[in-house]
């Protein structure tokens, strides 16, 4: 329950910090950190334009999307405090819930009959498929390390005993940051600023959305970012009391947002055709973590 509230709070300013970091990095003052939320609220109040080719799918998909992400957030724990939903294997439900939302976003993009949105949908479906092995191997490695199979029990028993496990935690953080960047279609996989439909992924999928629906979609992205930030913060929290966990949580969220901002400021977008190779790297890094865990437990034959 704690994590749900914290994630909801963090989602309010996360993108703001990213944008602020980018402004500062490029030598501008930039908007306030609540500006993205203000934009979203303005969108939520607006009316909509629907394309004449769209059907009911187009209208319900954004609601399905945000519902699936909210449901997934319910699973994320905070240190010693389990999420609202917690059972063995809950991270499988987590991944599949996110997939459910993505399914609807993809079909809603194709519902418009626009070739640009088809492009985005095609890329999104492929890239998110390629990300999933990394996530599952990572969770498999931690299941192997701790002998548990739920988010909460994995994170609460993940004590950093030896030096190599610090490295594992660091690598896992890297993988999760990258997963978050890919899932939200940010740099270096996608550049939402380009304004060239041919090179975008997520932004091009929502070209036709407007008003309330667009607001929902934009806030879902914020929620997703904060959700991944919460998972990352779990690598550093352990079984501390709430007094410490909440500051650490926000520190990690802000740190993550700054890292995201810096990444977007100083990194170039990959060529679209090279993205699959890049995403495969994540799978190999998580395999590395897996073998690290095997070494740590001396399970090699």
């Amino acid at each position: 329950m704690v994590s749900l509230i914290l994630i909801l709070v963090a989602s309010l300013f996360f993108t703001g910090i990213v944008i602020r970091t980018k402004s500062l990095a490029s030598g501008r003052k930039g908007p306030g950190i609540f500006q993205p939320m203000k934009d979203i609220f303005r969108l939520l109040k607006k009316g909509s334009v629907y394309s004449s080719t769209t059907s009911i799918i187009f209208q319900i998909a954004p609601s399905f999307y945000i519902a699936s992400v909210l449901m997934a957030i319910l699973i994320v724990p905070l240190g010693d405090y389990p999420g609202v939903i917690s059972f063995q294997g809950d991270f499988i439900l987590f991944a599949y819930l996110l997939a459910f939302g993505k399914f609807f976003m993809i079909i809603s993009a194709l519902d418009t009959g626009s070739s640009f949105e088809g492009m985005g949908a095609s890329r999104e479906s492929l890239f998110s498929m390629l990300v999933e092995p990394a996530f599952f191997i990572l969770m498999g490695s931690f299941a192997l390390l701790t002998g548990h199979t739920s988010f909460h029990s994995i994170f609460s028993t993940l004590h950093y005993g030896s030096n190599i496990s610090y490295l594992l935690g660091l690598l896992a953080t890297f993988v999760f940051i990258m997963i978050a960047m890919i899932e939200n279609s940010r740099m270096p996989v996608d550049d939402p600023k380009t304004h060239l439909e041919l090179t975008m992924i997520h932004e091009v999928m929502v070209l036709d959305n407007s008003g309330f629906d667009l607001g929902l979609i934009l806030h879902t992205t914020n929620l997703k970012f904060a959700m991944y930030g919460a998972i990352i913060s779990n690598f550093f929290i352990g079984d501390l009391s709430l007094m410490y966990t909440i500051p650490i949580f926000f520190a990690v969220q802000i740190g993550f947002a700054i890292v995201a901002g810096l990444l977007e400021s100083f990194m170039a977008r990959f060529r679209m055709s090279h993205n699959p190779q890049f995403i495969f790297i994540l799978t190999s890094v998580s395999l590395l973590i897996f073998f690290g865990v095997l070494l740590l437990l001396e399970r090699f034959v």
Partner: protein
Amino acid sequence: MRLLIELFNLVAVVSIVALPFLKVRRKGILTLVTICLQVVLASILSVQVLSGNPVDYSYAGSFITGAIPIRVDYLSSWFILIIGFTFLTGAVYGIQYMKKYIDQAANITLHASAYILAFTTLIDICIVQNSLVLLVIWEMMAISSFILIIFEHYKTETLRAGINFLIQSHVCILFLTLAFMWVRIKTGTYDFNDITAFTGSQPSLIGVGLFIFFFIGFAIKAGFVPFHTWLPLAHPAAPAHISGVMSGVIIKIGIFGILRVLLLIKTNFVTIGYLILVISVLTGIYGVMLAIIQHNLKKLLAYHSIENIGIIGIGIGLGCLGVGYSNQILIVLGFSGALLHTLNHSLFKSLLFYSTGNVYQLAHTINIESLGGLIRKMPQTAFLFLIGSLAICGLPPFNGFISEFLIYLGMFKSISSTDFTLTAMMLFSILGLVLIGGLAMICFTKAFSIVFLGTPRQISIDKVEQEKRASTLPLYAIVAVIMAIGIVPIAFLKVISLPVGQFANVISVDTVSQFSEITHTAAMIGVYSAVFIALVGLTIFIRRMITRNRLTSIGNTWGCGYNGSSNKMQYTASSFIRTYRKLASPFLHVDKIKREAKEIFPDSVHQETHPHDKVEKWLIDKPIYAFRQLLSRFTFLQNGNVQAYILYGFIFITLVILIPEIIEKVKFLINFLNQI
């Protein structure tokens, strides 16, 4: 109980005899009544068995067959229930579907009797435990399925697919016959129980060898790679309700066979487990990889059946490893996952095939590339297809998620085993299952949105007829069961726990430690599925309330400044999967015919892609081609000359007489040389 089984078969016989004497319209009704009656009888039998009264009696049989034991256990009952439900929905849907062919009276008679026969034989296969009788029934099942497939026999394609099916069915029967003969020679009886006695007294290697024979036989029926090549041909050729039934349950009889043999055989289950697991992971990935590039909707679904057989196989493999390593939790999770996924697949696959049937009947094509925007004309079919797509992708809150979850949980639980091979294998299968899930999503987002969403591509939507109530009603029944499994999986797991107990060698699964934990988890998932549905409903409701009085307008799709709209500008199925195709090109074989734009005022641009199956090409087509090349060298013998044929006969007879003589002489010579 005995009466029930005899009555069940009697109903089928009476109805098949009566069919030719009825009017065409009555034939369908009689078929439906017969199937209903049979399903009721079979269900009573199953429920009786599942409530703890296994059937075990035997007929005297003849001097050829020996005693014919009839045994109905939990495993049989589970499959009987699955088969019954799908055949029932198939019959209801089929009546509506076949109305188009009402002028082909004789053909429909044959079709209806084959349908009843296929159902009867499938149920009988589940209960008979005499190998010779089983082979006879198996053959009847194969032939009746053949007749069902070739309903439109005046199409060459259909006939070709049917004959392909017939041949491969007989290769399947050949392997089964070899395996049964092996047991028969060693034990002297046809009773299944002797498989246990025989393999129990032999070294485990013999058992593994025997299992491989059985496995190949059943794998051809089930459609494991590389024995799957008949499936993508037969499914598109058959009428929709037959495709649904075939994909839903007829291929599952192969799974039943494998499970049955696993219950009987006593051997090294670790080896068998690894074998099944590796084949299944490859089957799953290969099936879905090929499914994505198909543009014939039924063929796409057929490849997905292969994929799902892979998932079921992964469950079975895990269960076997559990037996081998005596890891109770793995047995429970593996076999429960496999058994539940068998039911799940029979539901969503028949749902998808039936809704594809609706598309075919109303739009007259199932080529994905020429469809589009059908949701306007057939909203119910679109809705049903969407439910099927979500379920087959294993997304919550639908049934596919529950069975995949059980299999995942088994893998994640046993990844921390102390055995390195098992850990590595679990990692491999997790990777496999994740890839299958992700690829399935690409495939069904493509299939659903290209067919039902957007604007029509080649076929004008005005020509598409309105859907009829009768063509969607049985589909809602399937959706109800799909939702029931998604929300109260525990009720189904309770039933599954009985056959799983057979594999774990315990009377009741409740004695397995941690089982209550698993059922608890499943129950929680059911609750969370319900919560999720409620949450989705709530967001929709909130959106509705807020935006109710908002100004909305209709405009063109954003065209990058371009305001004209053309259907041709839409993304097509091929373009949607292009990035995937590029990535997977080393594993795929796609023939591409392309006419590119040239000069300043180009002609029309054109591109066609024809996907092929690499396994089929290298494992079946090439060897057969080579064999035919070899045989063609001897065609000079067949010269149509009667004198020459008489000469062959003469040479043959001479050889038969002479060869023993010559051998004798050679022996004599060798002896003579030795003595010197």
